[in-house]
């Protein structure tokens, strides 16, 4: 009698499991058989009416069938969950090659990129960054830099004047003087900034940026200048970069040199960028003229120094192969974005 009912429940349950199309249906079926008032639960309650002698056997039968059904449901649940997950994933699958509009990272201006690189190389070598006025007294731009009153660079064809005494600085060297007036040696600074000269063509802009460097300490020599600039050249272009000094002239340095770097594009073999010479002129430099030190109240017997200056526009044009300086002030987003 009991066995008959058990086998009927087993049969019905198997049918219900195979019919259940989803987890919900399966859950309902589970309740129908194993729930508080499920078929098997009710049968279990009947056990109390079974004669004591038959109880152990009946109990075992009922427990076995219960374990069997629970296992069957667990397996069915697992199968169904797996199937449902597969379906959902198939349904949710995206075309990963599609995109949606997003805020694009902006671009630093190429002049800032190059200026930052220059600054970072020198700050890494223990230089500080100093700033000075762009509109300055002619004293700082010329007189204190040992540029005589009759020097042609003071001419209005080469300098923007506000009045007789005040001008737009033509060189960041003017910052040197401001610093030397307020800071005593050792001095190890770079001065990046805008400068102004009345030129406007493919290789000149009336406003451009320079980075000036100044080192003043005891026992500073031309060899030290060469060492620092070689280090700079290697970091700015590549480890293979070589430098070459050529004698030149700046009123505020003596000796003065032009510093050529081996061409970054051809490595010195000669190409369009270096006009076949293998060298690129990038920096002016020299040993600080003792007259400049004395003018700022620094004892030139005790201290010596060197200074160097370079044009950021020129360095940028060389690095990126930009043919016309005016493109650097075009500010077309399509140009700027190339420098991200």
């Amino acid at each position: 009698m009991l066995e008959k009912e058990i086998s009927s429940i087993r049969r019905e349950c198997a049918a219900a499991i195979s019919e259940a199309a989803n987890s919900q249906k399966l859950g309902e079926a589970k309740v129908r058989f194993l729930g508080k008032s499920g078929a098997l639960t009710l049968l279990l309650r009947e056990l109390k009416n079974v004669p004591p002698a038959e109880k152990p056997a009946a109990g075992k039968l009922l427990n076995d069938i219960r374990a069997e059904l629970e296992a069957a449901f667990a397996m069915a649940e697992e199968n169904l969950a797996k199937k449902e997950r597969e379906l959902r994933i198939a349904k949710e699958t995206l075309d990963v090659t599609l995109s949606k509009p997003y805020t694009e990272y902006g671009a630093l201006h190429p002049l800032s990129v190059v200026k930052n690189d220059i600054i970072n190389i020198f700050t890494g070598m223990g230089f500080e960054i100093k700033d000075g006025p762009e509109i300055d007294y002619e004293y700082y731009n010329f007189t204190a830099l040992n540029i005589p009153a009759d020097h042609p660079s003071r001419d209005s064809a080469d300098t923007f004047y506000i009045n007789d005494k005040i001008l737009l600085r033509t060189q960041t060297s003017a910052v040197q003087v401001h610093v030397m007036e307020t800071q005593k040696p050792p001095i190890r600074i770079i001065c990046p900034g805008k400068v102004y000269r009345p030129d406007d063509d493919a290789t000149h802009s009336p406003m451009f940026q320079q980075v000036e460097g100044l080192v003043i300490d005891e026992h500073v020599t031309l060899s030290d200048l060469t060492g620092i600039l070689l280090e700079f050249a290697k970091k700015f272009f590549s480890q293979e970069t070589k430098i070459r000094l050529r004698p030149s002239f700046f009123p505020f340095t003596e000796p003065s040199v032009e510093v050529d770097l081996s061409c970054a594009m051809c490595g010195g073999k000669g190409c369009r960028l270096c006009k076949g010479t293998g060298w690129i002129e990038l920096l002016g430099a020299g040993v600080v003229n003792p007259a400049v030190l004395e003018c700022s109240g620094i004892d030139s017997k005790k201290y010596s120094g060197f200074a160097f200056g370079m044009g950021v526009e020129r360095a940028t044009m060389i690095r990126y192969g930009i043919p016309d300086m005016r493109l650097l002030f075009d500010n077309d987003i399509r140009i700027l974005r190339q420098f991200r």
Partner: protein
Amino acid sequence: MLIPIKWLKEYVSFDLTPAELAEKLVSCGFEIEQIIDLAANVKNVVSARVVALAKHPSADRLKVATLDTGKAQGVLQVVTNSTTVKEGDIVPVALDGAMLATGVRIKKGELRGVASAGMLCGMEELGITEYPGADKEGVLVFLPDTPVGEDVNKLLGKDEIVLDVGITANRIDANSIYGIAREVAAATGAPLKPLNFDYKENKEDIASYVALSNLAPDLCPRYMAKVVKNVRLCPSPELIQNRLRAVGLRPINNIVDITNYVLYEIGQPMHAFDLKMIADSKITVRRAEEEEKIVCLDDKTYTLGRDNLVIANGKEPMAIAGIMGGKNYSILPDTTAVVFESARFARDNVRKTSRSLNLRSDSSARFEKGVDFWSQDAGLRRALALISEYGWGEIVGGTLDSFPVRPETKRIVFSVKDIERILGINVPEQNILGILKSLTFKVNKEKEMLVAEIPPYREDMAGINDIAEEVIRIYGYSHIRPELMEGKTAAGGKTKRQEFADKIKNILLAKGMSEIVTYSFVSPRIFDLLRLPSEDPLREAVKINNPLGEDFSIMRTTLAHSMIKTLATNFQRGNKAVRLFEVAKTYLPKALPLTELPIEKNTLCLGALNDDFYGFKSILEDLLAVLHIDADFIRGSKPYLHPGRSAIIVAPEGSVIGYMGEVDDLVAANYDVDKRLYIAELDEEYLLDHARSGLPFKVNSRYPAVERDIAVLCDKRTEAAELLKTVRASGGELLIDSYVFDVYTGDQVEEGKKSVAIKLICQSKERTLKDEDVNAVVSGILDALSTIGARLR
């Protein structure tokens, strides 16, 4: 400075190719702009005698010339259309494969059935513009004594290589062929040949011909003059003519040519006056009178003033000193006696006069660069030596010479150690001595020290550093060994401010903004484009006295124009989404006209095209949040902003640190833009002064936060800031955050009102909040809101 190499070799011998010579000069401090081969344009053209001239058998206008080209190619036959060439003439003939100055290449061929070995040439084809007695048109006929079979470049003095040498401003002594010869001698070790200064003068005294008075020694520190009489005026010899042509000058006559020759050879500009024209026999160097006039050699009249120096006779100016002579005093065919002037004029005065009169000459160009004190005497003696050499006149004894302040011989005392201290390498004493001697310095040893006597033409030499430079530029910079400095380690690096400046840019980049760089100078018309009222303080700008043009004539007081202009340019080029920023100075004068330096204020400007107000504002809000600057956006405007869509940005202590908003459509129209533009300017100095990091670190509450949304109805004009201020003031310490997440006006809301949805977030540090805790906070807030006319919806 043009340096013909053959001319240079007259003073120093060397066995170098032009390229090698160029490299030597570069290595000792002279840039080579160009190496010019004067013969480059004309190749394979020789002189030939016309031995026979016959009619062309089948063309009336052509002739068949039989030419003797001597050692070149013997006898040749050439067909020509020349009507002027005669038998016996010596003419240039372009041989097979020749190249002409016109760019044409010549090949032998046939003309109407008659073989032609080449072509007869005219001046244009030879690249010349004049030849003694020759016509500009037609075939050139050489002078009768011209050798046959010579290369025409040689005949015309064009077989010469010229170096264009850049001379740095300090080396005025090197602005001459002899000056460069000194350098070549030092660089190659070859001896420098002395100049020929030999001349004989007669027993007369110049004083009986002319007197000198120098009334302006400040502008004319030296004036020398000599008289030459019985002058034989004639063309210069070919050598002189060719040399002058090689440096781009036109030969005129022997006297004028001598002055030009000396200008290039010595670097001394000279002038020759016709003696008979010197009224009262007096040369006076003086400042011009106001409104004094002179007609110069260029046939133009110049009006002078007290700042201009003239060389005058007893009556009127004969020359503008150092610039140009007067037309009436020039050397003419009837000149029989001349006064040679060799002077030094102050370079800035020559420059200023030349600029103000807009009158330039080879002489003024040289004086502007500067002429050393050695050159007056050397130049004058060279001119007289040439007169003497060629027998062109009788040199009168005595010299007029005004030399008020004779410079003393300069001596520089130094030691070998001094040189090492500057260069960082040891240059042996014998090398130092050798180099300085090769540069014509006299060096003596006095105990441990060396004393260098500086030659008079080296006015640039001031001290030991100059000696060090002389030594190393000849010794060679390749000897310098790169070294890293010894000494104390410097701290270096960026300051906090400089780091925050970088951080600001990085934040903006992440917001999709790209950096621009624009000119600091703008046009004064920008204030009209921006619709600034006439009394607006931004119109008070620093003005450039000599701008490149009105568009670049004032220093900007705002970055707004440059930003709007850049946005407009991008818009006009079809660029779509554009977000830009610029960090630059604005220049704010304390008073105009400027008596002290203006305030230079670092300013941050942001701009956007195809953005919206709140999107643009969010960039600023997040920027300020990251910098931990708790600024408020308050309604406020600028003349160039949309009055309803603009805000000023106010710092906690109440100062205005910037503005933002939509560009007014009338202003946008001034820039030809019909789209909405957004712009903001912030005081970067304030940001850098007040930016800080978020530290110290705070521990978050362990207890859960509870969110409540409320929607209140309020007057449409009530601003979110007012509602939130009330919410925050009344929320107590449990309210940790609140913000507006929706604003609604429409059907469900009565006219003139709006519904504002506010998110309230409550949290305690001590416990989990219960419903009644949060209810109490919300009801407190609602009570407070009702006092400003906002009630729960």
